[in-house]
């Protein structure tokens, strides 16, 4: 077994024992990237030189016995939505093609403090808006299990680079399912932490009240390892919560005794693919065999999740993306374009409108339009305010559920990875991809996606577990129990 096929936890042990160096490990990944990236397109930029320099520095520190961080020498790929000082950060958009942040996201600082080696920037749907990574302004990403299919999104690059063994660990963000859905479609593990668990400082906002940064990896214990570094209070993020961070990687192997799992009937209604349903039901049976109690629970407002989400997220986005106007940074339309154009608008308004129409892709513009409309005079109450109220009802559904069960178990997606281009002309069909994932973001609860099977055609199927706020530790332990009993996570695509 080659070194890159091992888990991050195994690699870390080898680094610690001196059997491999970080330079060797990093170089092995760079070689793998060189080999398979042309077929996958998981990265927007591979930072080979910087990564090798960092790796050499970690090796030097280890040799001289200097104190090392928790991820010392492990390569990590970063979704191109996290600001990194003096390194281009594009958010998958033409708008930020030349943007070089003068500061680091808090999680980037944490990775650096943990002595992780940053491998490069992964591809994504522009401004994290999408479920297929086809909305990247640069290129699409292919699903490593079938390169004619999408890897999911918006963290499609983050998931694809894991399943194609191009990185052991990666960072994604999840606003409505953007970690869990690509993890499911690419056959890896992805955690969306509780809202407020990981600092959003430096995460380029899509919908501020829903966005969370989270880890992706091949296994649950690798996810726990990275999560331990990411989590924690940050004074720079007002919505960050100050509660202790458990040692996730230490406790992940302790099975939970007397685990009660809730099954939501609506999750298995019309629309779910039969193979997915069968795999998830089999996973539920696995838990039963591990001693878990299964309970049917009601989430009466689950079916309103998408509608609620597709009001709140665009509303926040329309405001969050107002800053991209060509005035202070980012793309600005060619000045020559600003001559009189027959409208009665002044030069500044013409600059704004041209810049934004040229700099944003169609999906981003669509959501800005939706949000602007839903917040505008006369529509606020019917759309935005209404959605905030239904959001409360969804949260109450969760509160009631977690009064009865420890976790909710169910599918991540209704279908396995779909073909490229299949849903690009039908936004509503694309939005329904998030059916099972958006409610966790609306309620702020934690959710994890892990491999639980394959379709007959060999595409991965994901299992979702959701837990009450700040119950990541239990969530990871429960997921690990499943992984101990199954081998879906060990399978890799042929590339």
């Amino acid at each position, binding site marked *: 077994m080659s070194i890159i096929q091992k888990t991050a936890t195994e690699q870390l042990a080898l680094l610690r024992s001196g059997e491999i160096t970080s330079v060797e490990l990093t170089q092995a990944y760079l070689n793998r990237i060189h080999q398979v990236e042309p077929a996958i397109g998981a990265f927007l930029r591979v930072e080979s030189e910087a990564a090798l320099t960092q790796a050499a520095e970690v090796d030097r520190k280890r040799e001289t016995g200097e104190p090392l961080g928790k991820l010392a020498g492990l390569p990590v790929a970063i979704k191109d939505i996290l600001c990194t000082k003096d390194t281009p950060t594009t958010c998958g958009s033409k708008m930020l093609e030349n943007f070089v942040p003068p500061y680091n996201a808090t999680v980037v600082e944490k990775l650096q403090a943990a002595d992780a080696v940053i491998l490069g920037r992964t591809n994504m749907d522009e401004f994290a808006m999408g479920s297929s990574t086809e909305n990247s302004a640069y290129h699409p990403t292919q699903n490593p299990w079938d390169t004619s299919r999408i890897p999911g999104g918006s963290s499609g690059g983050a998931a694809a680079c894991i399943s194609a063994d191009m990185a052991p660990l990666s960072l994604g963000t999840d606003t409505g399912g953007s970690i869990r859905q690509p993890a499911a479609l690419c056959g890896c593990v992805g955690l969306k932490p509780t809202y407020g668990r990981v600092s959003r400082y430096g995460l380029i906002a899509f919908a501020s009240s829903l966005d969370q940064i989270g880890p992706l990896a091949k296994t649950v214990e690798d996810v726990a390892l990275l999560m331990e570094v990411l989590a924690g209070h940050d004074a720079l993020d007002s919505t960050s919560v100050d509660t202790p961070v458990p040692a996730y990687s230490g406790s992940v192997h302790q099975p939970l005794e007397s685990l009660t799992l809730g099954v939501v009937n609506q999750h298995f209604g019309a629309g779910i693919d039969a193979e997915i349903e069968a795999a998830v039901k089999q996973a539920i049976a696995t838990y039963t065999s591990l001693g878990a109690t299964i309970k049917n629970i009601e989430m009466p407002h689950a079916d309103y999740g998408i509608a609620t989400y597709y009001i709140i997220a665009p509303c926040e986005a329309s405001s969050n993306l107002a800053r991209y106007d060509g005035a202070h940074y980012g793309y600005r339309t060619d000045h020559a374009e600003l001559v009189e154009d027959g409208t009665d608008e002044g030069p500044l*308004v013409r600059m704004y409108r041209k810049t934004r129409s040229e700099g944003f892709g169609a999906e981003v513009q669509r959501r800005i339009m939706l949000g602007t409309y839903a917040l505008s005079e006369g529509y606020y109450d019917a759309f935005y305010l209404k959605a905030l109220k239904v959001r409360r009802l969804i949260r109450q559904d969760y509160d009631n559920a977690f009064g009865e069960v420890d976790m909710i178990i169910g599918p991540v997606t209704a279908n396995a990875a779909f073909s490229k281009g299949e849903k690009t002309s039908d936004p509503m069909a694309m939005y329904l991809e998030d059916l099972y994932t958006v409610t966790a973001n609306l309620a702020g609860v934690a959710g994890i996606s892990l491999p639980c099977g394959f379709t007959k055609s060999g595409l991965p199927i994901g299992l979702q577990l959701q837990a009450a706020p700040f119950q990541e530790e239990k969530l990871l332990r429960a997921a690990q129990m499943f992984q101990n009993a199954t081998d879906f996570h060990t399978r890799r695509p042929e590339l």
Partner: protein
Amino acid sequence: MSDAPYEIVIGLEVHVQLKTNTKLFCRCSTMFGSPPNTQTCPVCLGMPGALPVMNKKAYFLGMKTALALHCGIPKFTKWDRKNYFYPDLPKGYQTSQFDLPMSEEGYLDIQSTKDEFEPRRVRIIRAHLEEDAGKSIHDEVAGKGDSRIDLNRTGTPLLEIVSYPDMRSAAEAKVYMQELRLLLTYLEVSDCNMQEGSLRCDANVNLHIPTENGVIATPIVEIKNMNSFRSVERGINYEAKRQYDVWQETGKILGELPKQTRGWDDSAQVTRAQREKEESADYRYFPCPDLVPVVVTDEQIEEVRSGIGELPSGLRQRLESDFGLSTYTSDVIVNQGRALVDYFLELAATCGDHKLAGNWIQGEVLRILNDQEISIDEFKLTPSQMAELLRLVQAGDLDSSKAKDVFTAMLESGQSAADVVEDLGIERVDEGALEDLCRMLIERNQRVVDDVKGGNEKAVGALIGQAKKENPNVNPGQVRQICLDIIKNI
């Protein structure tokens, strides 16, 4: 009072820059006058991914001000985004407060020292926190060339104080602004420097015009850019006349035209229509998801309230009732700020004659402060030095003109009153000797006696002049009184 054929109705929106070291949502400096774009960071530049964190001091300075304005402080308050595009607003929205402001329903009492209007209570709708925008500098020829943007001021904490339309004249509006500024100065919550923009005022103005068919109201106009007390007064008066003329011409009344925004052009002394926006304003307010609400307890509110100290209105009353000062004198002293009031209180206590102390401060001391453009902190004489001088006046050792000479000499030399009196050779004249002198002068001046007897008491002035020539130390008031008494008894 105005005899115009209309009543002006005025509500003011005042923006006060709160005295913090750092901005409302980041820790960049709020210092005025730094080179452009040197006081900015990812947060106030609105860079992708940057997040705001509320300045605690700004919140509590806001609360202190609101409490001094008798506002109620809701236990729960939150922040909202006001969305609009403008290059001095790098995020594309201003973080402000919409439906749940940090304070509501207060008032400020105003009165005119010049009897321009009856005392009035101006009610406050709300005072809320928000961030300031940056500065845009436009090309001389509008529409040509680029505008230059400086974001140093972006994110500076402002308290917006919104009044009800309770004022009825430009003079009231001006006094409201002056009284508000004074209050803010006493509270030490703002520098209130109008030139530097730390106190700014927009006015909503319309007219109530009595007609045969009852009173009509003209459309409301918001006047911006009034950057001094004088321009507040002039801007509103100009706008009132303009609205009246327009109404006479067009007959348009409230509701028939949208609210208009006009800018006050101080050099031309006119209000001008500001360029209409491309669309009617639709700010799409919604709760800022990046900031969390603030919840306060009664204890916190009471703690802030207890730190407020004595305010101008209370002090004026105290100087009148406890110190016997006239309304005018107490007004003058209080309006100069807390430091002068403290000076007065110390002087009054040391010299014992409150009225004398008040008059001297209102007169001589203030004259020096104004002439030298200094504050009382920079004034050379301590209250105890001043008290020594006033005790000489009280004792009759110095008449008022001599005392002023001594005062001037004290300021120049820094000597004590006693030393100056000695240096100037001022001696107290014995009362017996003074009476002898007066009798001698009366004998020499029969015409003065006749004039006085004929009812012209002023004629006695000639004797005072002669007495001064004989002995420069005589007290003119005393001479006058003695002479009049002697003449009456002749």
